[in-house]
């Protein structure tokens, strides 16, 4: 199962000291996200990706962190399910 983030024109971002607040226009909702979630939505998931690749990409952003463990990938999977429910990402048929 793979996801890609909604188009960038759906989001308005505000950032202070690596903490982010994002306004999602279609839903009118405001979310408080950290740098990792912001990275997922703004860069990593621009191309469709499954949870494992996404967690690898996240880990890759931290120097010398080779391979995310299963627990981390499962956590990212759970979050992507929540992102989909909120309409922040769209599921892509494989």
């Amino acid at each position: 199962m793979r996801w890609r983030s909604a188009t960038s024109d759906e989001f308005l971002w505000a950032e202070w000291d690596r903490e982010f607040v994002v306004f999602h226009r279609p839903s009118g909702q405001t979310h408080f996200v950290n740098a990792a979630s912001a990275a997922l939505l703004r860069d990593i998931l621009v191309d469709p990706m499954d949870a494992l690749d996404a967690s690898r990409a996240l880990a890759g952003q931290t120097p010398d962190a080779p391979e995310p463990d299963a627990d981390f990938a499962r956590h990212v999977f759970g979050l992507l399910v929540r992102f989909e429910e909120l309409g922040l990402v769209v599921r892509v048929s494989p």
Partner: protein
Amino acid sequence: MTESALPGRSAKRTVSERSDNVRRLVKRALNDPGSLRELEPRQLDLTLRLMRRAQLLGRLAAQLQRLDLIDAFPHPVPDILFSAIAGAETRARVARWELDRLAWALQDAPDTALVLLKGCAYMLAGTPNAIGRAFGDVDLLVDESMLPSIESQLIDHGWLGTRLSAYDEHYYRNWAHELPPLTHREREVEVDLHHNILMRTARLKPSAAMLLDDARRLAGSRYSVLSPVDMCLHAMTHLLYSGEMESGLRELVDITELLRHYGDKEPGFWSAFWPRAEKLDLARPAYYGLRYARMLLGAPVPDPVLAASASAAPPAPIGPLMDRLIPTVLFPPHPDESSRHIEASRLLLLVRQHWLRMPPLLLARHLGYKAWLRFRERKPAD
């Protein structure tokens, strides 16, 4: 006729004189919003209060915005109008998002027709009465056989059924034309899934299948809307039998604008109208809808269609009674008087008992429940 009242002392006016003034102001606000600038301040103040009470302030404000006239009004009118616009825009966004999430939740369900009714239909079909319109719930007409699977898909995706007493569950499952409302756990919009537009026990038996067959899928959307004639017939049926008379005038405005819009744009609209009303067994509500849309709001109903509708006129005593009750109930009362429960409830009982064939015990319970649901969402100052 300007009001010659002394400052601070409201003029002594007979009740009927006052209600004529109310109707004249509301009709003027509906048909010629720009001319409100020429009103004497007290009359403009009363007009805005009446439009708010009739849930039409958002519509008036949106029209004045289109005419670029809002800032031509004295303080604090712009604040009142821009506030109404903000409220209407938010309600539209909330409904649009609920539809987006419903389509997401049903993406794996079989591709059955999801027919939007009322507010959401006007919004997505883009009919003229959609601008600035106040509405809240999402109403969907679906094939009865699909209801169980759709309901379970939604419950799987976070929508919750309202907790009902055994009686209400029974009422909804067996007599009503809809399921108990669903609400998503994180949002407050009520989703009503209908399998017909009238109760099972109603004497009128409109065929849901015919409505679904004629429904039209909106381009690039998961949703469909009723055909133009059916959309008007449903609006007329809902006006009389839904029991929400507080928003009756707004629904008559919907009917009037739909008749005008489709009368122009939809080829063969008027020639197909009355035959379709009879075929769907909705002749009586259609008779009332045409009559009062034309009589009260000047809807452009061609004479031949009005003549044809006379065949569905009510028996002698009921007609004149309805002619007197409908306008009193539809037009908002003067804001300083409490709303008119007596006429509204008498009208309701009359309609319900004769056309929805509900035994008195059931009728009292049903009225109680519907009134209570409406009461619960009531916003004191909205």
